[in-house]
């Protein structure tokens, strides 16, 4: 009986907030290496710090996304069996996280960039995800006339499992022995894996919009469904834009190019419509969820512009392999995914505080992220020009010339650490009280 009263979604969200803090902590250390290259070289080094940072950030997003689904469907969670499965799922995740983090400290690697870890740890994650799929399906089959967010959640859950399994095809020599096919599959996986968790998070954004505006319109109108299918289409076929320079088949590159050009458009439209439809009282009542969703809206706009430009091959050749790609990855991870997750945490934890302190943190977060994003783009553009220059200096000299950008990037990262960690601590404390 006690188990039934326990909010399993909250457990996932609190765990994800802890992973966010860990990811920020490792991120700062990794950023320092860009300024002082021999910092911690013999202890951890970039070789460990990068996966520590990346994996922690991915855990934040995936566990957060899981927590959002469990919270979103909590009215249908009535059986003890669902709780037990969810709890086993959580334990498997904790087991995998401890194993993965420990293996990085022991320099035990073996996976594929960019979510890389010894493949043994993929097993508990895969089992946890299968349990999640079982639980998810048993819950949504109780819902009639699925709104778009349930379709998006289902897509995210299913495709994560598919692409996560596909991520380990390299174990078979048949794939590994053919370098170009192997790389093609690697970047197919990376593109679709991100698309999968984006489906869950954008689904959550629609769920929150329905909740904040107190209507069923946002999650059921035709634009929402058009947006969903466009997103799904992109998840499946737009990954080719990662590998324009790889000597793979032309049709893969062209499909990636054409599909990428259709991206994101409807998402802006739907958020714009939603903003116009809710009144001041509702905005005030759901103060921070509303503000974070609106912040995500602006970051969607900035990153959409960047993504479309980067998907044009003639421009991609300047940005490929540069920090512009990092800026895009960070911009979407922090600007969109993190903003949606923070909005969800404020909403699900029922945090109504509108204090000045929280507002200062909110603006510190937005300004730090903007400076962070601009400094990475600045470094990336300089590297892009170097890449195509006929009179190239050495790689180390080029990296040395980017140092001012990296200093700004590290300080902006510190701002992100302070703002996001403060939000995480405040939200964890709120979760404890409720």
């Amino acid at each position, binding site marked *: 009986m006690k188990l039934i009263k326990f909010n399993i979604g909250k457990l996932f969200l609190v765990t994800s907030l802890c992973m966010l803090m860990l990811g920020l902590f490792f991120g700062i250390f990794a950023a320092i290496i860009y300024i002082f*290259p021999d910092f911690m070289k013999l202890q951890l080094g970039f070789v460990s710090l990068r996966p520590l940072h990346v994996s922690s950030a991915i855990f934040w997003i995936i566990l957060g996304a899981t927590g959002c689904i469990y919270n979103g469907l909590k009215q249908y969670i009535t059986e003890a069996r669902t709780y037990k499965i969810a709890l086993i799922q959580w334990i498997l995740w904790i087991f995998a996280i401890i194993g993965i983090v420990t293996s990085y400290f022991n320099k035990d690697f073996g996976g594929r960039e960019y979510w890389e870890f010894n493949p043994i740890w993929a097993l508990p994650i895969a089992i946890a995800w299968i349990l999640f799929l079982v639980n998810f399906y048993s819950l949504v089959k109780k819902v009639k006339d699925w709104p778009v967010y349930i*379709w998006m959640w289902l897509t995210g859950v299913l495709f994560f499992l598919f692409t996560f399994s596909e991520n380990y095809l390299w174990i078979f020599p048949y794939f590994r022995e053919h370098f170009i*096919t192997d*790389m093609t599959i690697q970047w197919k996986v990376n593109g679709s894996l991100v698309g999968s968790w984006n489906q869950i998070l954008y689904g959550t954004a629609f769920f929150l919009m329905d909740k904040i505006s107190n209507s069923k319109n946002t999650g059921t109108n035709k634009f929402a*469904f058009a947006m969903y299918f466009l997103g799904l289409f992109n998840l499946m076929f737009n990954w080719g834009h990662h590998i324009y320079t790889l000597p793979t*088949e032309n049709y893969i590159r062209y499909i990636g190019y054409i599909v990428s050009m259709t991206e994101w458009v409807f998402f802006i439209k739907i958020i714009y419509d939603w903003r116009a439809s809710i009144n001041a009282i509702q905005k005030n009542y759901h103060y921070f969820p509303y503000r974070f969703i609106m912040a995500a809206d602006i970051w969607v706009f900035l990153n959409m512009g960047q993504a479309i430009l980067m998907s044009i091959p003639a421009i991609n050749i300047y940005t490929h392999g540069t920090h512009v790609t990092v800026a895009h990855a960070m911009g979407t991870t922090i600007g969109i995914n993190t903003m949606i997750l923070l909005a969800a945490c404020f909403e699900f934890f029922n945090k109504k505080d509108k204090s000045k302190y929280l507002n200062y943190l909110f603006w510190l977060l937005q300004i730090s992220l903007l400076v962070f994003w601009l400094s990475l783009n600045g470094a990336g553009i300089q590297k892009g020009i170097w*890449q195509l220059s006929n009179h190239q200096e050495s790689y180390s000299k080029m990296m040395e010339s980017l140092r001012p950008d990296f200093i700004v990037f590290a300080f902006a990262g510190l701002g992100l650490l302070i703002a996001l960690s403060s939000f995480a601590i405040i939200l964890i404390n709120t979760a404890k009280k409720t």
Partner: protein
Amino acid sequence: MSYEIAMCLSEQTQMRIHCIYHMTIEKQYYLHMKFKPKHMFFILSLCFLIYSISIYLKPLSIKEDSKFNKEKASEGRLVWQAYNCQSCHQLYSLGGYLGPDLTNIISNPSKGEKTVRALVKSGTKQMPAFNLTDNEMNLLIEFLKSTDASGKSDLRSFSIDKFGMIEKNETN
């Protein structure tokens, strides 16, 4: 009344017609779309599956390259992963951002196999020294030979075609 005509009317009338238009569309949508999301989902998933399988079957049509031993190169790929070389280095500009791209390091006249062996053993200002066994080192070199044989990663060797796509220059 068409949507275009409505655009010429006053703002208030436009707003009303806009609402009616959307309500009608939504009503039609609910009447006709009852099973559509499911159908669309399955059609797209099927296309994705066919596309994925077509990629998985590619190795069957690839001719073997005599410049490297493919079994050893595939083992060398595991060495590359075991030491997490990808966290700092790139292949075809995909990977980490701290060190240079290594796709064609083997055929680079100023670097080559000997330099790779020396750098891995001794390290550099920011790269630690890696204690690879002789066998691991040989496998890694074989892997880098396979990346080198697969094509050129230098972005200066591309030109832009009439569709805005980048293509390898034929001289490269």
